[in-house]
């Protein structure tokens, strides 16, 4: 039977703590070795529920992105920013985050290098070029 996680042990909280160390926290399935982001509780390949924590370097290349001209509530004061999907180095995993200071597509060609800068309670996973 799976143990309930306390707030301190929550998967989101662990992900955030790793992001603040500029890492991306992943789960490696103990049964089949498949790698997933920390927030997944069962292996999507073999349904295994035992994992090894794996900290990946929070760096990678831009896969796609948008520059949000009309920001949702909570982001109105963020200036011009991009929401970015990036492929994490040395894995097939992707993550997404908030990259401030992007004004035009010329500022962020596809495959630009980005890295994790931390986790902001207001703006989420912070990235920098």
């Amino acid at each position, binding site marked *: 039977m799976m143990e309930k996680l306390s707030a301190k042990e929550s998967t*989101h909280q662990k*992900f955030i703590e790793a992001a603040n160390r500029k890492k991306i926290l992943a789960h490696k399935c103990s049964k089949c070795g498949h790698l997933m*982001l920390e*927030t997944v509780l069962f292996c999507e390949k073999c349904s295994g529920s035992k994992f090894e924590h794996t900290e990946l370097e929070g760096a990678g290349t831009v*896969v*796609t*992105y*948008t*520059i*949000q*001209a*009309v*920001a*949702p*509530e*909570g*982001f109105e004061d*963020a200036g011009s*920013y991009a*929401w970015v*999907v990036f492929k994490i180095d040395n894995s097939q995993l*992707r*993550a*997404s*985050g*908030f990259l401030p200071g992007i004004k035009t*597509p010329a500022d962020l060609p*596809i495959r630009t290098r980005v890295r994790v800068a931390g986790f902001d309670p207001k*703006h*989420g*996973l912070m990235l920098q070029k």
Partner: protein
Amino acid sequence: MDRISFFQTSPAKYDFAYFTVLHIAHDSSIATVIKLFIMQKAIFYEMTNSKVCVLGAGSTKYGKLNESIIEIALNAAKDAIESAGITPKEIQAGYISNVFGVADKQVHMAPVIMSNLGISHVPGLTIESACGSGSVMFREAYANVAAGFYDCLLALGVEKVTHTGTVHSTTLFSYCSDFFYEGGNGASFPGLFASMARAYMNTHKATEEDLANVAVKNHENGMLNPKAHVHKKITVEDVLKSPVVASPLKLLDCCPFSDGASATILCSEEFAKKSGRPYIEIIGSGRGASPAAVQDREDITTIPSTVAAARQAYRMAGVTPKDINFAEVHDCFTIAEIIDVEDLGFFPKGKAAHAVRDGATRLKGEIPVNPSGGLKSKGHPIGATGVGQVVEVFDQFTGKAGERTVPNAEIALTHNFGATGASAAVHIFRKVDRK
């Protein structure tokens, strides 16, 4: 409800099943067991092959509506009931789709709607699946008629959000994303689809003009739909010059926030035939799912839930994409329609932009797409959208679509998804010629 009373209150086919169970209990000879096995296979075949029809359909106008969410729902319900030529007393269940009822201070909507139709004893169910709520609910309603639980039911979708304002509506919609990774990092829904657009444009060398062509075509169709939210003819230049919402998408690449309701009456074929009214038949139904977050999809230029749902629906209907005479697809943003028509098999991957440019999806093209004006022009009251697509097919096949009628159409497809395609449903319909 216990086992006995379940069978006693269900249609005749279940009484027969119950009889077989009792019979097995008293006579277990091999011959009897084989005979009953064959009989039960026959029952299963009948249950899964029961024809389900749409006997009535109605919609409110989509747009900014002043009535309460319940009043909007009831207006559509009344239209559908009158269209079917039935009384509310003939309705055995109510299936309702809605997402943001809480924004108009009403959740647990099904019993409220049933009560206001004067049938408070009729069980209802409210279903949420983001922007795909209508089609997902329709699928559940369909399955319950197909399985023989009900002979006649109301399937209704409703939404009211415009009173919350654009900024708050944008925020509410972002709650339909995988919020920890998407909305929580600053992505709005236009932003998520914009990221898909950029990936598509980068992979398939499509342009912003290609996306704009979808908007121009759907606005042209919407001009012919009196119930459409946006009645405005636009040009490619208008789209390109409209303000950027989330690059590369501009205001005119985006559907509007809409209020509105659409309703259908679903019934068994026997019920439809007895009514003597025009009806259409559901010949295919499919559901699919995708990773909730865009980042987790191997290919951001396709929506796996659409592909899976379409495959199921085509297989069930025994048709191919070439047999579809027109389609109502989920064009919440122009890029969505480009991806949809490829995922539904109308065009090879990467070729839809060219096909749209060449007019293949126009009202008189080889495969008309969104003759109603689609979400882009007809509007997108998210709980109602999937049902509204069925209303369009019903109107097309029963001579109520006026100038936007697709000539000689016999088979049509509806496609609707939730969020960025995390959930999707596809249905295929056949025109029933009543001579």
